[in-house]
């Protein structure tokens, strides 16, 4: 309890501490989007012809599409021509070790709390640090290499593992899937590539950190994770971003492919700049398409997310349960405080037999935040004995926030078993007073109650993230009550 108080005391009135920019030289393409920009991106990354063709095809498709307007998000129009689509630190030769990394860059990582050296020695977590649009310094390559695990930047994978990329890229999220996926497919900068070979249990948690630096630079990350038969991997994604006045667009695409008996666990703790707490200005627009396919029998994909940042969050990590007996899970805590808005949820599509999906969504609204859960569970005709359990809870703190729920259930097979529970509650004055009367301050009481509310989801996170997630909730809720 005293520790919480310490953290809160520090946080109250504190500026977003990651609000700084590194002033190393950045190579930034002038804003605007056209075929030449795409060719430039591709050539800067030294991509093979087929990759450029793929991008151009996506771009042409994007031009024909309209920006979706069905969400509950309220935002001013994005001028796609006013964004710069490429930003990277001065290009250097391929780096073999951390010694070769620009020291200013390493300093950035240290400030963000991810000192690569420390992680190397203590946490035993391989870190593929993505700085803006270029991946720098991949650690633990060798150790993973021994296990046969490939964990590298997406750009590297395009060059070194073209066949895998060609086979799977766009197979889970086709370029025409949605407006932002098409945009991403045209201009994606970089991301992670993970390949776990047959029967291998990845020896460590994999993680990646993101950062948007230059103003108006779209962050278009592309990640692909492939788990071959009988393999297992746990991947963590955690982000921070600096303070900016202009909104920053983040339109990533993540594709997961799980083969027979394989399991992919994908966890996210998202802490992007949420916008000025007093005016709502600035902040990241986080429009992400994440989808996994349980391609073959007995596979499992599990999404766990803690979203506390961003001005706008628009994402539906989903699972296609194609393989028989496959399992899809979605555990989410989404916080909207001050002027934040979130329209998030999941899609579970049951195709195979005896498939199971679990959805646990916890929404917390505070300040003037608007939190929307949008979920879709589809049981297709051939999906015999499908089972779904959905639990969608909202908690409202204060009088000016909102929570909305749009659950869609589409069942086309009569053997399906569906369970849906939903609850909406307030943190009542009487609950807070009860805690006060036991000597517990209101801030601590709110933390305790919110923590209890989120526990079910936090329990799904890998240990080190669970702790960070709790702290993040506390800091994000400062000033929410009273």
């Amino acid at each position, binding site marked *: *309890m*005293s520790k919480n108080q310490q953290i809160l005391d520090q946080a109250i009135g504190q500026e977003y501490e990651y609000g700084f920019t590194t002033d190393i030289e950045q190579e930034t393409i002038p804003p605007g989007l056209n075929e030449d920009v795409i060719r430039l991106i591709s050539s800067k990354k030294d991509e093979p012809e087929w990759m450029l063709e793929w991008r151009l095809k996506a771009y042409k498709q994007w031009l024909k599409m309209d920006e979706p307007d069905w969400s509950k998000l309220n935002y001013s129009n994005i001028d796609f021509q006013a964004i710069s689509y490429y930003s990277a630190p001065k290009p250097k030769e391929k780096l073999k070790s951390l010694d070769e990394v620009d020291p200013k860059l390493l300093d950035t990582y240290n400030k963000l709390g991810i000192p690569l050296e420390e992680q190397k020695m203590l946490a035993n977590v391989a870190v593929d640090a993505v700085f803006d649009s270029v991946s720098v310094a991949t650690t633990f390559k060798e150790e993973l290499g021994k296990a046969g695990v490939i964990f590298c930047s997406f750009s590297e994978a395009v060059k070194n593992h073209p066949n895998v990329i060609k086979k799977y890229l766009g197979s889970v999220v086709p370029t025409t899937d949605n407006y932002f996926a098409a945009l991403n497919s045209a201009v994606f900068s970089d991301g992670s590539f993970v390949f776990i070979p047959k029967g291998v249990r990845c020896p460590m948690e994999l993680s990646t950190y993101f950062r948007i630096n230059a103003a108006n630079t779209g962050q278009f990350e592309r990640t692909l994770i492939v788990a071959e038969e009988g393999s297992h991997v746990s991947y963590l994604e955690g982000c921070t971003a600096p303070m900016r006045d202009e909104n920053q667009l983040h339109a990533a695409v993540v594709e997961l492919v799980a083969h027979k008996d394989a399991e992919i666990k994908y966890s996210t703790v998202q802490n992007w700049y949420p916008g000025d707490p007093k005016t709502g200005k600035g902040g990241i627009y986080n429009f992400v398409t994440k989808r996994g396919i349980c391609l073959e029998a007995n596979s499992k994909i599990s999404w766990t997310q803690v979203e506390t940042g961003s001005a706008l969050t628009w994402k539906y990590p989903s699972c296609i349960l194609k393989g028989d007996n496959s399992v899809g899970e979605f555990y989410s805590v989404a916080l909207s405080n001050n002027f934040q808005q979130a329209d998030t949820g999941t899609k579970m599509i049951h195709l195979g037999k005896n498939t199971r999906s679990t959805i646990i969504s916890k929404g917390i609204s505070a300040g003037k935040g608007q939190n929307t859960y949008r979920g879709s569970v589809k049981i297709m005709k051939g999906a015999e004995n499908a089972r779904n359990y959905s639990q969608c809870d909202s908690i409202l703190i204060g009088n000016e926030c909102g929570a909305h729920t749009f659950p869609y259930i589409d069942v086309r097979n009569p053997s399906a078993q569906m369970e849906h529970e939903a609850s909406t509650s307030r943190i*009542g*004055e*009487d*609950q807070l*007073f*009860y*805690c*006060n*009367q*036991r*000597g*517990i*301050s*209101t801030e*601590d009481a709110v933390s*305790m*109650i919110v*923590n*209890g*509310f989120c*526990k079910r989801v936090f329990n799904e996170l890998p240990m080190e993230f669970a702790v960070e997630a709790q702290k993040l909730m506390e800091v994000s809720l400062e000033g929410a009550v009273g």
Partner: protein
Amino acid sequence: MLEIKNLHAGVDGKEILKGINLSVATGELHAIMGRNGSGKSTLANIITGRDNYEVMAGSVTYNGIDLLELSPEDRALSGIFMSFQYPVVIPGVNNTYFLRAALNAKLKHNGIKEINAADFMRLIREKLKLVDMDEKYLRRAVNDGFSGGEKKRNEILQMLTLEPQLSILDETDSGLDIDALKIVAEGVNNFRNSDRAFLAITHYQRLLEYMQPDFIHVLIDGKIVKSGDKSLAIELEEKGYSWLES
């Protein structure tokens, strides 16, 4: 310990207490009796500092300090405890975790080292016996799925763990069967000593049979119209309140 002088107070702009004078010394158990709406809970809420309850005139001092200046949690930390009439449910927050957090808040306030989980478990097991509660209650969320009687016993469990100087028992007997009532009363009685004081708010006389108050005050329309010793309770039981209302 507790001095209330000419207290005028109410809620939502309405005056409910119309000039209360009350003095509680250490070692004493005072009972406040009265009909519904007489102001009994208002008194409890004013002492504990609940939001929306306002003081229009008068003073409340506790061990010489102006109690009305303190926040509710500071009042609690200075040794005031209330057993709620309707204990609230706090889902997701484990009962044991909550109680330990409360105890540690108190220890910290008094400059004492916080209690660790293992020592706390030992402590709480002893206290559980005093209220005849099973350990399974420790695994539940605060008051989650508790029956009325279990909630009241949970309140007393908290009192025995936090060891306050001044305990306000707000209609602790309501909703209890005879056996539960006896357990609660016994818990309170065993906790009584010359350093502690109690304010027991109740409708009925039967709680007072078990708890033997030093003073009884009858509250009618926001005023204490009569005070007496425990024999007053028997008189009220026989005659009701109407003889005092004129």
